[in-house]
């Protein structure tokens, strides 16, 4: 029990004394994950919408692959990115291994299928609902996609949120490609793993508390943004 109490106490102390090491870790975590979420959304949201409104030959297989990719073990993604970025790998020349950029790449690969898949489901359902109306109104293909993305925006925000949640709590892949280097690539999750390994439960719990708080805050923020968008439709 005293471990937990000590953990909480240590956490609050670190947070309120604006411990520079802690804030550096928090800041890097946010930087990496927010970048990854933005990139993955730019790729995943239109991809999902496109899959929802277009009929083409291998569509069902593409969707099946997408859903399968959602279940990719992050550690394997880490390994894959590591091999690509290591000196001998195809992208070795960029010297990105053990950098925040490498961690962003790994997270983008992990969450893009998730975001695309949720976006696909959302837009598909909305398209089923709107289909007759938009066809009746003679909306062009571009106008249709625009209307679907716009009217589905809150569900799509939820998709990016889910991506954020998955990315911020991910440890396996970024440990491998980032290396958990102090002052360079150490983020909340890798730091927690390290401190737990060292038996430093108090500090680890403090970090965990920050991680949970952050996830809750981001969820609330996005919920509020969705709300002010008006109306209690759901």
């Amino acid at each position, binding site marked *: 029990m005293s471990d937990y109490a000590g953990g909480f106490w240590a956490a609050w102390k670190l947070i309120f004394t604006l411990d520079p090491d802690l804030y550096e870790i928090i800041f890097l975590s946010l930087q990496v994950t927010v970048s990854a979420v933005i990139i993955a959304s730019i790729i995943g949201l239109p991809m999902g919408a496109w899959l929802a409104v277009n009929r083409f030959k291998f569509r069902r297989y593409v969707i099946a692959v997408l859903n399968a990719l959602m279940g990719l073990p992050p550690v394997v993604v880490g390994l894959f990115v590591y091999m690509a970025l290591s000196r001998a790998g195809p992208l070795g020349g960029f010297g990105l291994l053990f950098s925040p950029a490498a961690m962003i790449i790994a997270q983008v690969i992990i969450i893009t299928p998730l975001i695309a898949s949720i976006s696909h489901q959302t837009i598909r359902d909305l398209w089923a609902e709107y289909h007759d*109306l938009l066809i*009746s*109104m*003679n909306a062009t293909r571009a106008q249709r996609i625009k209307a679907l993305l716009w*009217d589905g925006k809150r569900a799509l925000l939820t998709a990016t949120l889910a991506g954020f949640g998955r990315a911020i709590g991910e440890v396996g892949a970024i440990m491998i490609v980032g290396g958990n280097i102090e002052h360079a690539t150490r983020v909340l999750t890798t730091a927690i793993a390290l401190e737990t390994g060292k038996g430093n439960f108090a500090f680890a719990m403090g970090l965990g508390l920050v991680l949970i708080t952050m996830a809750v805050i981001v969820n609330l923020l996005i919920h509020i943004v969705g709300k002010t968008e008006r109306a209690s439709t759901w």
Partner: protein
Amino acid sequence: MVSILPLKLIEASAHMRGKKLVGPVNLTLAPTGFTMVIGPNGAGKTTLLRLMHGLQRCSKGQVAWALPAKQARDKQGFVFQSPIMMRRKVIDSLAYPLHLRGVGKTAARERAAECARNFGLSELLESWAPMLSGGEKQKLSLARALITAPEILFLDEPCANLDGRATREIESILRQVQARGTRLVMSTHDMGQAKRLANDVIFMLNGKLHEQADSEKFFNAPVTPEAKAFINGDIVE
């Protein structure tokens, strides 16, 4: 302005996965009038309207407007059996068809507000469309279909879930719309409504155009025994 009417259906049929839903239908819709499509559940009323509007693919024969189909679509309106509400405010839902036609945002909203006044929807402009009552949704659907001033308006049982007062309101709007020269084609289950509004009647049965006549003639002297039975409220197989 070149009219998209008359509309000609020539041996037109609709199939779905090999099964025939409607047809073959031969008919001509003259440029003016109020055509009422009646018939029992599953007779093919909705399918016939969708076929005319181009929502249902014509698998055999043809549906020919006086202008090419894509162009003709812009001059048609459709009110669905169950209202499709965009997840937007009433004013934005109303402005949307104008927006699609390239009308600027401010102008579109002004026209939407004016249109809402004519339909008694002014109080609801800022409401979220999917939250409206059934009657309000149906009125909004009608307003949205009419805001682009179509030459022809299709209505698929627009009063099916409405009470007497709302039905009267819609009927009076439809009379005004007809007086302005809009061609109306509507399906209904309500024989009283058909008698009140129709100039001519299409009686559908089992996917076929079973009988077609002027309203007066159809209701006073139906030719087929099925039409007679249907008008009397008997069950028609």
